[in-house]
């Protein structure tokens, strides 16, 4: 072969071996890799779900915090009288929120909704539908998180072009009504697209329906009860806050219809004949028939985010290795279930031989959501008291108190020593301010040695069937026909029955009772705050208000316990500001987009 030929062949050979310049970077995962496989979509989904505004153990509503934070004890219940927060936080300026503005998450959901269909060729079409349903569910959830805070917000349905002109990007706010309608549409589509069942932590048809019943109930209430608030303010005039009254029934009907969808699919938890234990377990049993949608936690060594600190923060001081008693229930929330009898008919404190003797007098749910002195927990009796009477008890006698659980009183005559405030203590910091402790969600199976920060893995029930029944009852009652009212009674009584409470009769059932039942059942679940807002009763109910505590004392002379009711330790006064039915649009956002104006009323 001639050299020239070799050369030619070599040149041709080399050219034909040329690589294309179209080489995707191996370290960046592309849309194709995400959208064209189930595991890729699942990875995308985990990110959408992890950003849902679920107000759970790791939710803090103020400042620059938000979701997934450590300080779970800055929840909403401190503003509704459900519990008193430790120490320095007594009355809370709740007006500013933390500037929730989840448009990044919304963009991710929008992007998914827009792009998944492009890759649907190689995918199972039912899966594609289901995934779209999940993305719609998540998007609706983000918008619901927004609308319940701000009223009307800009609705962005498709990812915007970064290079679009500023005027295009400065999207004005939609009306509050429009946002709820958008949520309704998304959820309705999700209900259609989603399958009947799903992995826990992911949405199915009924999860979407449950959320819809909640959201539409909000919309209906705002239409009905918000009609007269903020009248004439710029935001109200253009419909950024408030919904026309005539829409109310439509929304209530939607709420009702969505709730009815779940009938027969989920059931109130009723596995233990012991009503107290049943109600305690309801919140800890992952397999509960009542769980519709949970946010789950699991112990992952290297992922702190996969765990939380509920037990460490809120257990009585003697049952945790750090903190303790961060949130302590008020007597007020407890007495929504019925008055606790601590005095005899003459007004004298009842003498109890043991602290635990009081427990027998409590309603099952009352006892199941809060720890009272003397309850057995983590293998020990909760030892707490406000002080001891070393002298003969009279109404005016002064008890001996302490600031630390270490302080001991030694009775000189008998030589016996008494820990003045018990092992868990009452007072400031890590001690209870109300004589009570959180019990709902508390993992009683966790051994004391494990009770530390970031060690808890119990799930949070974001949507449970009891709430759906309460939504249904409320919507039905608001719709107002006799038939509907009868349905409402059925649902409320189902809850009371499971709770071990006396059932209501038709006549006893009022909208107020329905609301109270909701507050009882959903106590500490970060719902009441929103409920009080949508009912527009918060400013009347919480006006220079103080909450009460249960003070246990030991009478040395008698060897008995007594309980006194009095204002909680801080004696803090709470007022719901008139502007607080809405949060202000996050300040920085108005600077970037003046079209968000007018701001919400009174801001």
């Amino acid at each position, binding site marked *: 072969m001639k*050299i020239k030929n070799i*050369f030619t062949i*070599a*040149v041709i050979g*080399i050219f034909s071996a*040329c*690589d*294309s*310049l*179209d*080489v995707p*970077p*191996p*370290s*960046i*995962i*592309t*849309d194709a890799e*995400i959208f064209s496989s189930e595991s890729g979509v*699942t*990875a*995308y*989904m*985990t*990110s959408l*779900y*992890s950003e849902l505004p679920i107000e759970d153990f790791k939710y803090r509503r103020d400042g620059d915090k938000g979701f997934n934070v450590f300080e779970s004890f800055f929840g909403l219940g401190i503003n509704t009288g459900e519990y008193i927060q430790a120490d320095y936080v007594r009355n809370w300026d709740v007006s500013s929120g933390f500037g929730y*503005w989840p*448009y*990044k*998450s*919304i*963009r*991710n959901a*929008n992007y998914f909704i827009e792009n998944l269909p492009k890759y649907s060729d190689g995918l199972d079409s039912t899966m594609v539908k289901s995934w779209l349903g999940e993305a719609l569910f998540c998007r609706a959830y983000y918008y619901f998180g927004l609308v319940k805070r701000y009223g009307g917000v*800009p609705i*962005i349905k498709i*990812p*915007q072009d*970064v290079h679009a002109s*500023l005027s295009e*990007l*400065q*999207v004005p706010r939609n009306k509050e009504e429009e946002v709820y309608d958008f949520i309704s549409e998304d959820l309705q589509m999700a209900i259609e697209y989603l399958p009947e069942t799903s*992995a*826990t*932590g*992911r949405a199915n048809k009924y999860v979407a329906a449950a959320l819809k019943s909640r959201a539409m109930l909000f919309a209906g209430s705002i239409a009905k009860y918000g009609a007269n608030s903020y009248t004439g303010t710029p935001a109200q005039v253009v419909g950024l806050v408030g919904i026309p009254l005539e829409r109310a029934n439509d929304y209530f009907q939607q709420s009702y219809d969505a709730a009815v969808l779940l009938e027969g699919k989920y059931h109130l938890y009723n596995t233990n004949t012991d009503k107290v234990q049943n109600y305690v377990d309801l919140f800890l049993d*992952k397999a509960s028939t009542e769980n519709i949608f949970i*946010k*789950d*936690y*699991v112990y992952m060594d290297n*992922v702190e*985010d*996969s765990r939380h600190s509920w037990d460490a923060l809120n257990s009585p001081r003697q049952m945790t290795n750090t903190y303790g008693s961060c949130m302590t229930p008020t007597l007020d929330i407890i007495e929504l279930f019925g008055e606790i009898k601590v005095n005899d008919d003459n007004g004298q404190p009842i003498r109890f031989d043991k602290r635990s003797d009081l427990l027998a007098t409590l309603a099952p749910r009352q006892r199941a959501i809060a720890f009272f002195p003397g309850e057995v927990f983590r293998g020990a009796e909760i030892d707490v008291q406000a002080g001891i009477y070393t002298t003969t008890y009279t109404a005016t006698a002064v008890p001996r108190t302490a600031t630390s659980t270490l302080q001991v009183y030694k009775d000189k005559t008998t030589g016996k020593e008494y820990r003045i405030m018990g092992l868990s203590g009452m007072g400031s910091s890590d001690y209870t301010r109300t004589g009570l402790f959180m019990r709902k969600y508390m993992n009683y199976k966790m051994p004391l040695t494990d009770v530390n920060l970031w060690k808890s893995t119990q799930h949070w029930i974001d949507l449970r069937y009891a709430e759906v029944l309460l939504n249904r009852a409320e919507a039905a009652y608001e719709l107002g026909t006799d038939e509907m009212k009868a349905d409402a009674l059925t649902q409320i009584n189902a809850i009371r029955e499971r709770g071990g409470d006396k059932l209501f009769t038709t006549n006893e059932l009022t909208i107020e009772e329905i609301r109270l039942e909701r507050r009882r059942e959903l106590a500490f679940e970060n719902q009441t705050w929103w409920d009080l807002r949508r009912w527009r009763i918060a400013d009347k109910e919480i006006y220079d208000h103080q909450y009460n505590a249960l003070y246990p004392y030991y009478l040395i002379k008698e060897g008995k316990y007594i309980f006194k009711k009095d204002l909680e330790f801080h004696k803090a006064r709470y007022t719901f500001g008139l502007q607080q039915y809405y949060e202000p649009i996050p300040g920085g*956002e108005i*600077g*970037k*987009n003046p079209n968000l104006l007018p701001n919400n009323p009174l801001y």
Partner: protein
Amino acid sequence: MKKQNNLFKWISYIKRMSFIFLLSAVILFPLSAQTKKNITGMILDVNGNSIIGANVIVKGKKTGVITGIDGKFILEAVNGDRLIISYIGFQNKELIVGKDNLSKIVIVEKDELLDEVVVVGYGSQKKATLTGAVSAITNKEMTTTKNENIMNMMTGKVPGVRVVQKSAEPGSFNNTFDIRGLGNPLVIIDGVPRDNFTRMDPNEIESISVLKDASAAVFGVKAANGVVLITTKKGNSSKKGKFDLTYSYNYGGQKAIGLPLGTDAIGYMTLMNEKRKRNFQNNYITQQPPAFNNADFEAFQSGERISSDWGDLVLSKFAPQTQHSLSMNGAGENISYFFNVGYLNQVGIFKTGDLNYNKWNYRANIDAKITKNLRTELKVSGIMDTKNDIVGGSWNIFKSIWNQLPTDAIYANQNPSYPGLASGFIHPALAINADETGYNRTNQKWLQSSLAMIYDVPYIKGLYAKVLYSYDYKNSDNKQYSKAVSQYSYDPADDTYDISILNSPSKVSRSYGTNTFSTMQLSLNYENSFSDAHNFKGLLLFEESVSEGDNFYASRELSLDIDQLYAGNDKNQIGNMNIDGLYKYVTKSIVGRVNYDYKSKYLVEASFRYDGSSRFKAGQWALAPAFSAGWRASEESFIKDNSSLSFINNLKIRTSYGVVGDDNALNYQFLTGYEYPYGGSVFDGTFVNGIKFKDVANPDITWFTSKTFDVGVDVDLWKGLLGFQLDFFQRNRSGLLTDRLRSLPGTLGAALPQENLNRDLTLGYEIVVTHKNKIGDVTYNFSGNMSITRTMMKYIEQAKAGNSYENWRNNQTDRYTNIWWGLTGIGQYQSYQEIYNNQVNNGGGNQNLIPGDYYYEDWNGDGVIDEWDKRPIATKATPTINFGATVGAEYKGIDLNLLFQGATMVYVQYQEQLAEPLAWDRNALALFMDRWHTEDPDADYFDPNTKWISGTFAAVGNGSVRGSGTFAIQDASYIRLKSAELGYTIPKKIMNKTGLTSARFYINGYNLLTLTGLKYIDPEHPGDELYGYIYPLVKTFNVGFNVTF
């Protein structure tokens, strides 16, 4: 004498061919009779010696003769004919018959320098007709410095190349290296971009060229920071058909320089007492008792207790370094070869020698002529190196030995079997011992190969095609064995040693990475001359490359004392990869270049390169055009033919302009996508990894655009007695990446991507002065160079300042970069009276001040020294002005070479223990004994009558004793005798008897002498890298020889 570069031998081949052609023309076409006359002439050299055998031809005619033994010639010509006289080694001369005097024609020798060939991108050029700013050094110039790192062997020798050696740690190759302050240059070894420059064996390098201006533009989008071209040796031999076997050996001893050490027990206790007294709060009313009393001092003074010398415990006075190299070099009729094997061993300055570096280099360069028209070049080289580091790194040792108290016993109960508790650290004696604490070993291997075929296209003179294919493979294999280690404390009560275990559990970690790079170049090259006046050169090249990287790592805890992964525990084991090391890039490029010169007088060059890369958005191609031109005034007749200007051998003015790119910051910002894993959710009780959404893509993102401009002049006078070069250069970069300052509504849900918005400008000057001469038997030469370069931001995306002060303080636009802001120091208070008289508040109402403390200029005149008094006081980072000078001399086989190198406009600031004695109440460096203190150690610091003894540093006890502003930020200008070499080459006469071809012996020193205003610490020692705990520089003494068989 400088050797013509072998790589580009074809150039000389063509030249030789044209010479033969010329010669045959003379012989084959003898004179023909026309209307002509016989003219005679004589040719002489400058010394008046007649030249025998010179060619004399009549231009444009086929007439020519050769001069006879008397230098005379006769030939027929008519008036007006042009005679061209040529002779090997001499410059051609042209004369006009009837006009010029032919009786004594003096021809001059060719200037070696101008004849030199310089390697440029994808080719070579004669230095004389070069239009770009290219500096080159040869092997000989480079090897006058003996060092393990090629970069350090270039220091001070190449104008515009800035080299800072930050550490001499074996195997760390810790330097900053740039050209004209432009940033990391592209390094090309034998035509292929490669990363092993620092680790090459100096014996295999033929030359290094540095392309500083638009001459780099043929490298397109990688060329913005200049290019370093390294050419390895080719086979040749002293005698045809014979091969040379050369063995070189170098032995060096290293000694740390500018390395401060901790003070002794007396010093420590003295300073501790002073620190306590310095505390105003605790001593103002009543004096605190001293930390150490007389008995403590006496114990050490009497020898009852011995001060612990932690530095001496770990540092050796002398660390050896050896280098061997064996090369075989030969050329035959059709084949030439160069083989080299090199070995380097460098031991660190720790006593155990467990910090060390080993390197093997090998190379085989083979050139073969296959047929008349086809040649091939094969180059294969490899490097295998091993760095043995100590676990935790050397900096921990320096930090530790500065930190340990001299009053603490090195061994518990003075028993060497029981190393004591070294506060906060692993005991230094254990830490430097691999047997005790394990090791951190990195093995790297490079295998680089290229094959080129060169085909001379028949029938078209000067045209040849070349195909080059190269494949490089590198792997990096790191193994770290961290071993649990015991330290002891002695309990005299029951005569027992308590054990405390550190670094537990033992752990073994491995990481492994591979990189491959392949490139293919197809080129057409053309070179020809027409009418002896028009010289053309052309290049058209297609290049394609693929680079890939991959890696992984794993680590496991060990229960057994076996340093292998398999022996590890499942629990807590880790296996993962570094995502940045996983890549694949493909590039394609087309390069074209044309050179033209008219009679080597008017020179122009134009080039372009188109780059495509998989890192660019589809369809994006970067164009890099460049143009340069030169004028050799010395070739004009008004100089050349003017005898009064005959001292001008060369005078060239040249300029270049090019537009190149820099794709370094491109990292797929035009792509959307996801990173994984990131966060997650729990589904069905199992944690599922989530993804991170990448920022919004910028589809318009592109490389930085660099416009480089250079203008220079090259002058050679009196045949080398004086030469100089002057260059002015600037580089305008635009499209530097930054975030646009545009607040978009949050509802967009995305952050803006980076955009090509910022601009900067780098400019500077370079000057080189050379002198060479021969006086009697002494030949000597001098070359000095200096360069200055600075960079200024021309546009920077920044928030508008709220007021004019803020603008002055923060605005970066039109400002030089790397500016250090600080207070302007005035002095140290000499007495209480001075403190009292100072009306300016230097902090705390001057209440806490004592003599020796610093005071500053109240620049804004508000009576308080604070943030507002700061102004630009120094430059940061690499020195602004660099200079170097070499002096070489030779006398009868003895050669001497000195390299001076230095820098100015360079500043340094120290932190932690280099600034603060007794930091964290640990020991102080001995240098801080040079401090202000009271004459009477027991005196009250706050009593105005106390007598003070001055020192360099402020009194101990108030944090840093170096003050701030201009006191702390110190001028680190220096000049040093970087290397000195004295060699002796055994005369040929003697050698011939031994049968050896040549032999040379030398002694050499590196970093021998440093002149600097900086006290105690080496000026190149960085103040900020690893808080100043970085391994020091060394002074090295070498002896060695080269023998050729």
